[in-house]
């Protein structure tokens, strides 16, 4: 009888341990399953932006001497005064270059192909500025 009880103990506790582990494993699976189930899929609300066409920068001047640099005023309130001061200072510090302030036509949203053509033909560089 004692021997039988011992045998039972040898089997019983490991069996109980195995059962407990089984219950624990089932609980883990249920929890994991519940967590997985709680995830949902939503659609992206964003529209489609156009592809970007890279524009290589224009070559830079190797010297300012003898060059005409356009300073373009796009027309925002008080920009002109700011650019006049810029023109004066640049002319003082770099007198061998010719610094010109020019107004773009229309509002600051408008294109000015005539001015761009003039700058391409006569200018070495362009600075465009907004005084906000």
């Amino acid at each position, binding site marked *: 009888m004692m021997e039988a009880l011992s045998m039972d103990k040898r089997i019983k506790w490991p069996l109980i341990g195995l059962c407990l582990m089984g219950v624990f494993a089932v609980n883990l699976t249920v929890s994991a399953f519940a967590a997985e189930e709680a995830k949902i899929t939503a659609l992206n*609300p964003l529209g489609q932006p156009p592809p970007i066409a890279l524009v290589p920068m224009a*070559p830079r001047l190797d010297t300012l001497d003898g060059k005409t640099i356009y300073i373009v005023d796009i027309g925002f309130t008080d920009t002109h005064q700011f650019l006049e001061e810029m023109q004066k200072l640049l002319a003082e510090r770099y007198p061998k270059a010719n610094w010109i302030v020019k107004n773009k036509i229309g509002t600051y949203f408008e294109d000015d192909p005539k001015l761009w053509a003039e700058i391409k033909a006569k200018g070495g560089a362009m600075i465009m500025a907004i005084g*906000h």
Partner: protein
Amino acid sequence: MMFQELVKTYAYKKGMPNERFTFVPHPITGQAASVCRKYLEGNDPITGKPVLQEIVEAITKPLTPEEKKMGFLARPVERLLKPDTPDNLQRFFTENGWTDGLPIVLPTEERVAEMLKGTSHKADEVVGTMQPSSPHEPWSYTVEKVAVNAVMAGAKPEYFPVILALASTGVPSLFTSTTSFARMVVVNGPISGQIKMNTGIGALGPFNQANATIGRAWTLMSKNLDGGGKIGQTYMGSQGNNLNYNNVCFAEREDRLPPGWKPFHVQKGFKPGESVVSVFTGWSLIRADTSLAQQLHVQMPFWLSGFTPYQGASLFLDPLIADQLIGEGFDTKEKLIQWLYDNTKTTAGDYWGNYFHIANFVLPNAKKGDEPFASWLKLPKDAPMPRFADLDRISIFVVGGETNLFWQAGDFRYIASASVDKWK
């Protein structure tokens, strides 16, 4: 500093990610020439380098290999987001700037499919393009994308044709300007009754799902369908505008228009039986505290004279006010509009001297010869002139629940209309 992000992202989108730029302290507007000089002799507040040195280096320093690059950058947008819990998705949407700060209805495939039942148009049909303002890049969007944003707003499928019509205008409700624009949407025609929009008591307030969610959907579309509403990049409104939450979304109360007064959409050439959305741009609303001791129309120019002449005037008249105006001899909206145009005046000195938008957007065109502005520019300073540039700038709506004789107005100018029926 606040413009650095805008300049960088804008240059990037224009294909010039390496554009060379220099900053001076802000603002320039309103500063004396001596201050401008001081800024220019000082340092760039972002880089710390001398401003003039930076300017000269920008035009003389040789290009790097990166600056010489050509080619295309595609920017594909995934249709589905990575699966996650609802709470995490709410956070994700908010942190990405895809909401108006309020919780949204998550746009699951099931909900979007349900919304798509509100239209006969296919999910992959391109509705149009939209851009935060004209210098910014236009983005395109499909019926499905509009449905996603409509679900987010909490709209029902029966509202979807109205929301599609709004999307089809290509007009964003969020505009980039530092001036903090607002927009307005007005619904006309049978659809407003079919989807039970509120045109009575509280029509302009938060009392109805259709009014609330259609207006909200426009805000969400303006953030998501065109890359708008990104603070510092595509939204620069210095103070913002509280009207952006709902965009003054309402339906005109057509059943209480006095005889002879046409619904707004009919004034714009649509048939009475057509359903239409109309969109407007402006900034603000006022409530006119008018006296009943005098004729109503006589008091109106006073209340409208606080509006900038750059935009227009939209009047929201309770039906009782409209009835009163009939008694004062205005048996059509057009007669009232003409009277208001003729009698809401300013002086040439005020018009050309006192308004930021007139100086920046009208004066250059006046100098180019555009009329009537070119002629108005020649007027002496004390010469009276109409406050609003033309009759189309004044719009009249009847809306409200007849609990009292009140009216409101906004500095809103008409932009465009679109058919709702087309999107059913």
